[in-house]
C-alpha cells in the first residue's frame, strides 16, 4: 500500500500485532473463565462474573487509568513485574494488555453461550466411560464449542483493533511503540489538514474489520458443518 506513509503503515502494523497477541493470550484464559462460569458452582461466582464484565461497563478511560495505577511502574503489580523484567507501561505490551482486557468480556460471553448450549449428558457419557475430565473437555466439549470459540476470538480481535480510550490512557501515544491505528486517526484529526491521512487509516480499518468478519463467517460455517457431520 504505497499510499500509506511510513508512520501510518507503522500504526497499522502495530495494531495488527497488538490485537493478535491480545487475542492469542486471552483465548485460553477466556475459554477457562467461560467454562467455569457456565459449568461450575463456586462461592463468589457472581463477583467473578461482575469483574469479567467490568471493562464492558466502565468508561474505557477509567479502565485505562485503573490499569495504569495497577500495572504502571509505580503500581503494586507493575512494580513487582518490573523486577522480573516485565514492563507494560508505555510499551506495546501494555497496549496489548489494555486491548486484551477490553476485549475479554466479549470473548467470554460468546464462548460461554456456546458451552451452555452443549448437552451436559454428552460430557457425562464420556466421563462414565472412564475419560478424565480434561480429556472429556478436549475431545467432546471443545470440538462442539469451536464455532463459539472462533466467534469469540474474532470479536475480541475486532474489539482490540478498535480499542482507543484505555490504550491512550494506559500507554499514551508513542509513534512506533504504542500508537495504534485508532490513536493515529485521533492524532491526525487534531491537526488542521490531517483529514487525508486520517481518512486513509479509516479505510484501512474498515477493510481489516470487514475482512475479519467475512473470515469468521466462513470459518464458523465450516466448523459448524464439521461438527454436524462428525
Amino acid at each position, binding site marked *: 500500500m504505497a499510499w500509506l506513509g511510513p508512520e501510518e503503515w507503522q500504526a497499522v502494523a502495530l495494531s495488527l500485532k497488538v490485537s493478535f497477541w491480545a487475542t492469542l493470550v486471552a483465548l485460553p484464559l477466556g475459554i477457562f473463565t467461560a467454562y467455569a462460569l457456565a459449568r461450575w458452582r463456586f462461592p463468589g461466582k457472581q463477583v467473578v462474573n461482575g469483574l469479567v464484565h467490568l471493562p464492558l461497563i466502565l468508561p474505557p478511560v477509567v479502565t485505562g487509568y485503573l490499569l495504569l495505577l495497577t500495572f504502571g511502574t509505580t503500581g503494586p503489580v507493575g512494580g513487582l513485574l518490573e523486577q522480573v523484567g516485565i514492563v507494560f507501561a*508505555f510499551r506495546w505490551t501494555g497496549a496489548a494488555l489494555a486491548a486484551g482486557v477490553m476485549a475479554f468480556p466479549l470473548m467470554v460471553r460468546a464462548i460461554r453461550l456456546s458451552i451452555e448450549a452443549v448437552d451436559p449428558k454428552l460430557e457425562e457419557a464420556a466421563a462414565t466411560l472412564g475419560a478424565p475430565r480434561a480429556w472429556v473437555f478436549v475431545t467432546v466439549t471443545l470440538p462442539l464449542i469451536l464455532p463459539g470459540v472462533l466467534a469469540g476470538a474474532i470479536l475480541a480481535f475486532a474489539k482490540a483493533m478498535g480499542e482507543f480510550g484505555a490504550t491512550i*490512557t494506559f500507554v499514551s*501515544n508513542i509513534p512506533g511503540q504504542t500508537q495504534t491505528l485508532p*490513536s493515529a486517526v485521533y*492524532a491526525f*484529526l*487534531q*491537526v*488542521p489538514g490531517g483529514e487525508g491521512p486520517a481518512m486513509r487509516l479509516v479505510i484501512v480499518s474498515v477493510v481489516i474489520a470487514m475482512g475479519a468478519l467475512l473470515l469468521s463467517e466462513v470459518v464458523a460455517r465450516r466448523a459448524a458443518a464439521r461438527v454436524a457431520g462428525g
Partner: protein
Amino acid sequence: MRTDPWCQYSVGMMGLLRQYVGLALAALLAGPVAADEITVFAAASLKTALDEVADGFEAAAGHEVTVSYAGSSALARQIELGAPADVFISANPDWMDRLEEAGTIEPETRIDLLGNRIVLIAHGQGEPVEIGAGMDLGAMLGEGRLAMALVDAVPAGIYGKAALESLGQWQAVEGRVVQSDNVRAALKLVAIGEAPMGVVYATDAAAEAGVSVLGEFPEDSHPPIVYPAAAMNGRVGPMVAEFLGYLQSGAAREVFERHGFTVLAD
C-alpha cells in the same frame, strides 16, 4: 359476547408503541435554545477559570451561559459541521485561522484574549532549575519518561516540542517522551509518578497539588501562546457582544490572572 385476548393484547402493544414513538419524538424535537442563553465552545485548558468567569457574567448580566469544553481541534470541527456555538475560544490561533478562512466566524469580533506559559514540572517536590540551553534534561530524566501532550497535534505539546528544540534538548529526550491526548492527561501522569517530569501549561501546574514547577520556559523559546476568542458568523447580538465585552472586563481579568493566565486583551 366473544372476546379475543390476542386482539386486546395487540391493541395494548400498539398503544404502547404509539406512546413510545410520541415520547421519542418529543425528546428529539425538544430543546430549541432559550432566547437569553449563550453557548460557548472553549478549549479544555480554560475550564477552571472560565467556569468562574461564566458564573460572574450570569450574576452580572442575568443571561445563561452554557460552556462546552473539549480540545480546540474537536470543537473547531464541530463548529465547521454546524454546531450551535455563539462564541469560540481556542487554545491556539491555527484553528481560529481555519474557521476565519472558511467564513465561520465574524472576523471583526476576533480578539487575542489570553496568553499562557509552558513550564517544566516534576512529581512531588523538585529542585527548581534554570531552564535554558545549559540544562541537561536527558540526564535529569535518567531512566524516566517525559510526559507531554501530543507533540505534533495538541497545542501544549507543539509549544513544548518547539521550546525543547530551540534549547537544544529535544534530541536527547525525544525517545523518552510519552504523548497524551491532552495536556491534563500528561499532568496526571506526572502527578501519580508514572513519569517523573513533564511539560505542561503554567495554569495546569497551578491546578495540581501533586506536582511542582521546576521552571518556566523562556518566552522566546517557543511561538507565543495565544487564546483567540470570536463570535460565530450570524450570531452576533447584543447579548454575545456583552459576553465578549465581559471577558475583557476587570472582573474577568482578575479571575484569569488568579488562575495563571496572562490577559492580552484590554
